[in-house]
């Protein structure tokens, strides 16, 4: 007889997924900045506007790239890579498991 009760994925699966996806974005952005072009800053603001049905407007402002101390060490690349690695381990460990077993 098939058990119809859904099996919950363990929390480690979700931890892996979020670290993997964020790490991948950070790593790829770091490589893009290093080899292609610095990224401009994008301010998203919500100034008050009583006439808008939301009560505010949504304004997007572009700015110059932001410089940081120790940027020459490219922490985004190695830290992003580290997150991908850690995320992959958690993700794979939790992928085939259920909360009852894995925890």
């Amino acid at each position, binding site marked *: 007889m098939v058990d119809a009760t*859904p099996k*919950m*994925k363990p*929390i480690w699966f*979700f*931890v892996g*997924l*979020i*670290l993997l*996806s*964020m790490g991948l*974005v*950070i790593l790829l*952005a*770091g490589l893009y*900045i290093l080899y292609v072009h610095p*990224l*401009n*800053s*994008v*301010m*998203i*603001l*919500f*100034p*008050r506007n009583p006439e808008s049905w939301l*009560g*505010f407007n949504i304004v997007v402002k572009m*700015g*110059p*790239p*932001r410089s*940081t*101390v*120790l*940027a020459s*060490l*490219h*922490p*985004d690349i190695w*830290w*992003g890579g580290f*997150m991908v690695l*850690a995320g992959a381990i958690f993700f794979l460990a939790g992928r085939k498991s259920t*909360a*009852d077993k894995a*925890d």
Partner: protein
Amino acid sequence: MPAIGLTIVDWVIILIYFAFVLGIGIYLKRFTRSEEDFFLAGRKNSSWVAGLAFLSANLGALELMGMAGNTFKYGMYVAHFYWIGAIPAMLFLGIYMMPFYYSSRIKSIPGYLKLRFDEKTRVLNGFSFAAMTLLVSGINLYAMALVLHTFLGWNWDVSLWASALTVAVYVTLSGLMSAIFTEIIQFFLIWFGLFLVSVLGLVEIGSWDEILRRVPEGFAKLWSNSGDPTQNGMLITWGGIVLGLGFVLSFGYWTTDFLVVQRAFSARNLRSARMTPILASFFKMAVPFLVILCGLIALALSRDPHSGFHLMSDAGKVNYDSALPMLIGRYLPPGLVGLGITALLAGFMAGQAGNISAFNTVWTYDIYHSVINKKASPQHLLWMGRAATIVGILLSVGTAYWAKSMPTIMDYMQTIFSWVNAPLFATMLLGMYVKWVTPDGAFWGLIVGMSSSITMYLGVKFHWISTRLITLSDVSSDMAANFWRAWWAWLICFLVTILISLFTKRKTDEELTGLVKGLTPKPAEAGIRWYRRPAFYAVISLIVLIILNLYFW
């Protein structure tokens, strides 16, 4: 200060986080079918899951930013909050108190007070805890909106409502379960998002020794200058640290505050519940390497005129809480700065969710079910829990607007804990270990203890009494006064409870079975090998604590 300029990558990272927590809330809803699922996450978590959630419930962004700022203000002494001010209490909870809590199958701390004492003590604690939780939750929301407004340039109202609605959605959907899931995700995001700041700070300054060389001498020690309060940044003696922080405030918070203890109740069995705070103690001891280190790095940089680093100022007053966000802006490049901001956001939202999930449980069981509707069915209680979540969030938003109108409100947080938790710890300790302590003794002890703490606070604030009477010292800081006030409130509650118990009616041994030492069977550990027993890990934790204190003496 101009807002930190984020790139499109940073916005994507923030968006991923919001999508994730909402998605988890929706995913977990299908597993939330009963009231026990909603309020206690089904009591099926392992000690690792419960342990990380136990720690994360306390590791909010308010704590991270506040403690980094306090390190800038007081120096290494802030590490006492993480070591002597936490670890002994967490181990005591795991080894000695958890068997009483877990074995009695209670759903909340006020629930224990009902079984051990009576209904009036339960309701008193239920109301004071609910009020404290909503206040802390509102302050948390206020602080989050302030950070988004200051560092991202967001409109204050939009920041506040966006985060409050997100938390409302996922806690309403699946209660404690989703709160625990997001707390664990927050734990990882905080470490991945903020530990890099410490690493890069160390790289820039050169070494740990160089950081200590750059900060004032009194700020670089943990105990060796605690004999004379004028010689350390916190203006406190070792007596205040040990009695006020290490004993009363710490034990009061870690062993009786339902916000953290609720996570241990979600464990699948007694061994896992006992292991919950013990495992959390190892991670707690590591937090200073993130928070204290950042505070010291900020202090060292600010004393170097060539670094270009300085904290924000509000109307000429230094904003110490800006230390951590300013370091994030200094070191983290595109993508990572989004992760750093997300770590703070996750801390705020998980803190908010923790407070709300504790509030909805205490409201539903200890106020609504206990006072208003005693015949409510389990399904009705589940509905009430969801309704209480939404109402709790709305009340928190109201508190946040109130906090906004009172700029110094955040200074009162530690004070609020000393009002509620410090006397409660005396009640709990006596309740668990002395069987002749009576319901009337506990109730009036708690009333007098809380009243004395509030009176001492008001007395000093309005100059009715000298701070010297409370701190036993000519010099003291606000923090020192908090520690000492907590100690006196605890002592007053302890003595009044004993005194009244001598003259009032006791409960019988049959009524106290399973609730008091001597009338409760010891946890069965016959089949568990010595290296898997909670006591073994507690001893290791204690040894690490001693080594850390000696190393940084």
